[in-house]
């Protein structure tokens, strides 16, 4: 715990100096040794006091563990959250200053998936039609189910939440995006392949990546496709649309030897039938592209999925967490050839702190990147941006901080205005204006 002692005894100016050095060295400063610390438990670390928060009970936003925003081009903010076993939604006409009375969409009590990488999903079309998705645990063996619901009156009422997959094995971590034509793309972790293998006596860990789409606002979905049979089962998926409006997924794949490294995959399903279906089940499933050889050979649940964003130029930007033998921490890389090759990974944040939860947003060829650092006392959100498609980056600067429980930092935009969406137990939900794209 040498780093803990540093934080307690070094003055702030020294910490800033260390941080600056870290930036100047392009993020390669002081990587931590892997896993085995063999250091003394010191009293100093035990004296670090954290606020003793009482357990927040109830379904209100104040007690939420995860909140996901959707900001329309007209400036209407829709916020969906999970708290007290319920999935609720509210909207704000003043960028989060005030919210409408929440509408409870579903309630699964303690069966709701509130894992550290789980969050409800939302998309809103220009007419105010809302489509949401979330997961809950449907049985005592922790098999999960993804439910979806719709609203056609801007969130005043919702359809009864229903299963995306009827009688499925286990589905978790939905991620969705609506393209320019209103087609909803939905991907998730699906365990049918793993369960089938285990039933046949072939011991198998992990999950698979599944994908389906809807051309009627989520009323119905085409038959799902398993696009990669080998993925981590406990990390969220990232999804972005490329300039051709095809979804590109980023996720923690499982590569030969049980290596859980990051992958991206372009799903270019072409609508060649009148129903919008691909002509063949696997037509359009792109190759599994490895973002970096981190070589994280492990059977753990990292609970830490990647972020992805695609610029108008087509450049794919990815940020992720790894504890591989090649590198440990949070990293960023980009690809200008649809994932065939990626730039060398660049480490984000101060390696001596607990760096986590990167998130990306692109506007034109600008790239906005945030992540969270925990220094033993508080969580600090750092921002870095690139005006040239990820070639050069601004100096990282802190833009928000909070003590106690904090959600992942998220980025959204209204046209060229960029906002940080961040839920914290101490300060509640915040939509912070953090800059403007050129």
């Amino acid at each position, binding site marked *: *715990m040498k*780093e*803990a002692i540093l934080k307690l005894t070094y003055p702030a100016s020294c910490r800033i100096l260390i941080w600056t050095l870290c930036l100047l060295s392009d993020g390669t400063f002081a990587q*931590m040794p892997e*896993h*085995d*610390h*063999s*250091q*003394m*438990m010191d009293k100093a*670390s*035990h004296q*670090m006091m*954290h*606020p*003793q*928060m009482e*357990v*927040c009970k109830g379904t209100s936003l104040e007690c939420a*563990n995860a909140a996901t925003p959707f900001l329309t081009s007209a400036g209407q903010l829709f916020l969906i959250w999970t708290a007290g076993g319920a999935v609720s939604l509210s909207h704000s006409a003043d960028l989060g200053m005030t919210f409408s009375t929440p509408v409870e969409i579903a309630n699964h009590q*303690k069966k709701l*998936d*509130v*894992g*550290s990488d789980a969050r409800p999903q939302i998309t809103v079309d220009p007419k105010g039609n809302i489509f949401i998705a979330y997961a809950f*645990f449907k049985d*005592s063996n*922790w098999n999960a189910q993804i439910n979806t619901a719709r609203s056609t009156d801007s969130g005043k009422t919702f359809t009864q939440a229903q299963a995306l997959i009827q009688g499925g094995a286990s589905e978790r971590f939905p991620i969705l995006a609506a393209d320019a034509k209103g087609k909803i793309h939905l991907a998730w972790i699906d365990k049918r392949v793993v369960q089938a293998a285990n039933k046949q006596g072939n011991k198998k*860990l992990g999950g698979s990546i599944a994908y389906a789409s809807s051309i009627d606002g989520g009323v119905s979905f085409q038959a799902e496709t398993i696009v990669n049979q080998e993925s981590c*089962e*406990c990390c969220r998926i990232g999804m972005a649309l490329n300039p051709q409006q095809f979804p590109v997924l980023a996720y923690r794949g499982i590569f030969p030897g049980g290596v859980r490294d990051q992958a991206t995959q372009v799903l270019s399903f072409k609508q060649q039938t009148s129903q919008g279906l691909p002509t063949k089940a696997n037509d359009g499933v792109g190759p599994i592209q490895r973002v970096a050889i981190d070589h994280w050979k*492990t*059977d*753990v*649940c*990292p*609970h*830490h999925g990647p972020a992805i964003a695609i610029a108008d130029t087509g450049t794919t930007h990815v940020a992720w*967490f790894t*504890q591989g033998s090649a590198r*440990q921490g949070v990293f960023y890389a980009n690809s200008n050839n649809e994932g065939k090759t990626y730039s060398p990974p660049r480490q984000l944040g101060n390696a*001596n*702190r*607990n760096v*986590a939860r990167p998130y990306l947003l692109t506007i034109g060829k600008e790239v906005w990147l945030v992540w*969270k650092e*925990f220094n*033993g006392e508080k*969580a600090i959100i750092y921002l870095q941006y690139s005006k040239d498609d990820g070639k050069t980056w601004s100096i990282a600067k802190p833009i928000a901080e909070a003590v*106690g*429980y*904090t959600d992942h930092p998220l980025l959204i935009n209204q046209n060229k205005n960029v906002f940080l969406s961040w839920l914290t137990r101490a300060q509640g939900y915040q939509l912070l204006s953090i800059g403007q794209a050129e």
Partner: protein
Amino acid sequence: MKRYLSMLAATFFMLQAVQASESVKAYQNGTWAQLSKANLGEPLAVHFWGVTCAPCMAEMPQWGKFLSQNKQAKVIFVQVDDVPPEMVQKMLQRAKLQNANNFSVFQPFDDAMRYEVDPQWHGETPITILINKNGQWQRKTGPIQFAALKAWFLKQ
């Protein structure tokens, strides 16, 4: 007679459930400091697991077997998912660990809780922290090698 027997059996299982429920202690901010302080001077393994973590669930019965064969080994189990206590109990019973030294969170296992254990732990599970009698510690990420764990306890 059958009716009385089934009532007796139901009562027995209810009592067992209540007893088991009481045996899982609450883990919160500061618990780590108390645990490590209380156990200084003897080797200790603290295993962090979660009921929604498939690799954890696959491994837990092996922990039950290890403890039944190594009764002197001091192991504390901490369940880190925000789930109903009865589900934690069920999983512990399946692994024959209901009488072990068990803790569980009753709120999100947040950054501060993880940092207190290890500033470089990002929440991946399972992990095991091995603390020797001098307070020196190391983090083992992923399923444990039980032969190596036994050797570590014997070496202390």
